[in-house]
């Protein structure tokens, strides 16, 4: 017993020692950023920051961990961080997604900041440099100011940031471009050299700044994009191996921009649409997968009568169905609970399936504060295991539905702060493919074009389309097939022999939940019903045979 404890203690100590040495292997001072370009896109309430870093290894040892720093306020609003390594020049660039994890820096830095480490695919040798592209997505980062506006005013917001990029490394040259949605900028702080052209404000280039240098700025500008925020989304997916997947979604939608003061005049809103309620949103568009039926949209009050289900038909007969809820909402906080449910027949069911949750309309995006995805597996299924490309919390629950005895396992995936970028991860411009097939005809190209038109902009083929444009020699029939499968079977349950690994194509991995289910369990329900009827017959037989008679 004691020997065991001692062994465990020594093991723990050696592990700690190892970790200590490993963490010391690439100290942050080793890298130098020779060029940094930051593009901040403020067009909607979800802020995208693209950071292109040219990192050089100025130390003597090869290192493979690059550290990024963010201020604590930024980290609170961070929805996702993504990093790519770019290789090649100009037209022929390939990119590889890198792993990014939050870390702590052991040596005390002068400011309070949070750190993320990017793990490079290959260690960088001394003197070498590599180009990294990092994408940050922030939500709820724009402050409306004034906080309350009348119906005919436009929305002005504040954006706080630093002109110098916060980094634990020495930056030789850096430039920041801020893109505002319109040319109306009330004020912005200048840190020379600063230049404003049209909708773009350029801070820089700044030369030779020491690590951890910041220079706070703010921009006060007009942003009339609707701040549509889904406070809570509970999406319940019920799977039945008899050929049906039922999806029920409960949304709580809020407009998170400036509050509305004064009265709401419907007449003004509808007659002068551009000057009144410029920052309101009028409809929510949901793109539904094909072969969907029994769709309904409900509110707290009842059915949303202004909802409208349309179908788009594609050339080869596949259809996508778009549901548009036309409901004029005013600038005020309007909370709507939208319950939509649709059942999909004829899908390919199997052990694992892939889902892409959340739809958004074409022109603006919804950001989610919290998203619950509940997958109700059929009765008798075992070993559920979710595979999600980004961190979620998951737990199991039980649900009792029709004809259930034991209860159905429910896999609940919970994600805080979900943005549409999570669906289409920061894509590489070209795909690293092992192309199996040859044959790229004009028809396929055109078909992909029509896919792009009708697909949500978060789905892959938008990037496949760009691939087509970039490299026509690449034979893309395989991608087209995949693309077709992704599009059609957005809600499909697919069988896997091995991992249906789309990551090998650098396509966005879809949410997947794997479970095992023996088809023989499907017989449980009819047998249960049959035995109930049999009990009835046995009762009749027993009654007849026992021959109870009151009067003899």
């Amino acid at each position, binding site marked *: 017993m004691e020997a065991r404890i001692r062994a465990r203690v020594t093991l723990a100590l050696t592990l700690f020692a190892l970790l200590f040495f490993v963490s010391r292997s690439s100290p942050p001072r080793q890298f130098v950023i020779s060029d940094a370009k930051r593009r901040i896109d403020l067009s909607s309430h979800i802020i995208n920051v693209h950071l292109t870093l040219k990192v050089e290894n100025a130390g003597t040892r090869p290192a493979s961990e690059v550290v990024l720093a963010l201020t604590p306020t930024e980290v609170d609003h961070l929805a996702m961080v993504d990093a790519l390594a770019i290789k090649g020049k100009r037209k022929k660039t390939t990119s590889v997604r890198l792993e990014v994890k939050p870390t702590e820096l052991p040596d005390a830095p002068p400011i309070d900041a949070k750190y993320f480490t990017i793990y490079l695919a290959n260690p960088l040798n001394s003197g070498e440099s590599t180009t990294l592209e990092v994408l940050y997505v922030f939500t709820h980062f724009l402050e409306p100011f004034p906080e309350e506006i009348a119906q005919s005013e436009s929305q002005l917001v504040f954006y706080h940031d630093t002109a110098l990029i916060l980094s634990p490394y020495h930056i030789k040259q850096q430039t920041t471009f801020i893109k505002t949605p319109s040319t109306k900028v009330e004020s912005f702080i200048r840190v020379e050299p600063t230049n404003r052209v049209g909708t773009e404000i350029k801070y820089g280039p700044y030369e030779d700044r020491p690590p951890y240098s910041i220079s706070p700025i703010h921009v006060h500008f007009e942003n009339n994009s609707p701040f549509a925020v889904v406070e809570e989304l509970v999406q319940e997916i*019920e799977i*039945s*191996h*008899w*050929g*049906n997947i*039922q999806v029920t979604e409960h949304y709580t939608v809020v407009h998170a921009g400036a509050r509305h003061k004064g009265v709401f005049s419907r007449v003004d809103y509808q007659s002068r649409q551009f000057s009144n309620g410029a920052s309101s949103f009028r409809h929510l568009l949901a793109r539904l997968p094909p072969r969907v039926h*029994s769709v309904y949209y409900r509110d707290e009050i009842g059915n949303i009568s202004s909802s409208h289900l349309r179908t788009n038909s594609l050339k080869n007969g596949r259809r996508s169905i778009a549901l548009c809820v036309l409901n004029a909402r005013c600038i005020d906080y309007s909370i709507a609970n939208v319950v939509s449910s649709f*059942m999909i*027949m*004829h*899908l*390919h*069911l*199997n*052990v694992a399936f892939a889902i892409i949750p959340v739809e958004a309309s074409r022109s603006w995006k919804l950001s989610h504060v919290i998203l619950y995805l509940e997958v109700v597996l059929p009765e008798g299924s075992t070993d559920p295991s979710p595979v999600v490309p980004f961190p979620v919390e998951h737990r199991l629950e039980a649900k009792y*539905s*029709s*004809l259930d005895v034991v209860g159905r396992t429910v896999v609940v995936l919970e994600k805080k702060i979900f943005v549409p970028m999570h669906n289409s991860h920061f894509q590489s411009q070209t795909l690293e493919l*092992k192309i*199996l097939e040859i044959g790229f005809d004009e028809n396929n190209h055109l078909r992909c074009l029509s896919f792009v038109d009708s697909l949500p902009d978060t789905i892959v083929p938008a990037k496949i389309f760009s691939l087509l444009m970039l490299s026509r020699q690449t034979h893309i029939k*395989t991608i087209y*097939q995949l693309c077709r*499968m992704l599009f059609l079977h957005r809600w*499909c*349950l*697919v*069988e*896997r*022999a*091995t*991992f*249906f*690994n789309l990551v*090998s*194509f650098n396509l966005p991995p879809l949410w997947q939940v794997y479970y095992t289910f023996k*088809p023989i369990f*499907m017989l449980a*329900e*009819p*047998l*249960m*019903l*049959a*035995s*109930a*009827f*049999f009990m*009835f*017959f*046995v009762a*009749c*037989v027993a009654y*007849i*045979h026992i*021959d109870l008679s009151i009067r003899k």
Partner: protein
Amino acid sequence: MAPPAKAITSPVPDAWYPTLAVLMLAIGLVLTASFFIYEATSSKRNRSLAKELTTGGVASVFLGFGSLFLLLSAGVYV
């Protein structure tokens, strides 16, 4: 690339659900009727337990499956 996904569909094509429901329920009800007729017309001496139980059993199987397909065709996917 992993082999393309194989689809699983229901063991019974779902276009058949309503037809199967009606057929099976009809057969089940006919058997139920024959069960009750047997009970009503037989006297204590020539009643055979085996026959009663088999008729009841077969009727209940058909009724069970029929009601399952009825539920499935109505949209309650169990």
